[in-house]
């Protein structure tokens, strides 16, 4: 059964049973692979956004990332989506085997971080209608969500754990 350590940032691996370790291990491995692929695939977009914001809207020079992968470039995103989906399904299976405190912490953190990220995305999209700056960036919103998730997870562990 799951036990929080490091203020909720990690967990006591030895407290998990064999099945829990299997599910968590597959989930973490798949998520890491999916995250790495997404990072590689999104480099162009993130660079472009940063360049536009920093240069007052000028078009960025090409990075050549897409050329490096050639025809396989779109498949980087497909592979990333598949790996992240596998990670999500196995984490869900893992969560179902944990107790109510784990699920209360997870529900609190996921619920609050998702709500705030969606609100930020909507405000960003509305503000971008005028064309003053680029529309919402998925990568930046995903990063913000990850940071908020970590903050609210730690807050919930401090409160209940």
């Amino acid at each position, binding site marked *: 059964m799951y036990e929080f350590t490091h203020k909720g940032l990690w967990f006591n691996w030895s407290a998990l049973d064999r099945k829990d370790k299997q599910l968590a291990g597959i989930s973490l491995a798949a998520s890491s692979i999916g995250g790495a692929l997404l990072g590689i695939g999104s480099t162009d977009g993130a660079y472009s956004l940063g360049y536009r914001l920093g240069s007052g809207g000028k078009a960025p020079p090409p990075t050549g990332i897409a050329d490096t992968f050639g025809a396989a470039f779109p498949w980087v995103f497909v592979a990333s989506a598949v790996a992240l989906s596998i990670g999500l399904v196995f984490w869900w299976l893992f969560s179902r085997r944990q*107790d109510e405190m784990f699920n209360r912490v997870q529900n609190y953190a996921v619920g609050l971080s998702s709500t705030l990220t969606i609100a930020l995305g909507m405000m960003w999209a509305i503000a971008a209608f005028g064309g003053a700056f680029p529309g919402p960036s998925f990568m930046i919103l995903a990063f913000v969500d990850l940071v908020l998730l970590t903050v609210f997870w730690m807050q919930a562990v401090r409160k209940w754990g």
Partner: protein
Amino acid sequence: MGVITRVNELRLERGWTQAQLATEAGVSRQTINSIETGRFEPSLTLALKLARLFDTPVESIFQLAGES
């Protein structure tokens, strides 16, 4: 309004460790620790499970703060 718990007292009376009680109740040792220290209020299902394990009514384990 908070909840006052007697889980720690009842567990010690029976000579059980937190890990033993956690295994019997199907939760983590950390959850039992948090219930005992009052940081975590269990669901009705878990409260009833604990009452069954201690063989005592649930209201003798958990009471609303301010009630005698």
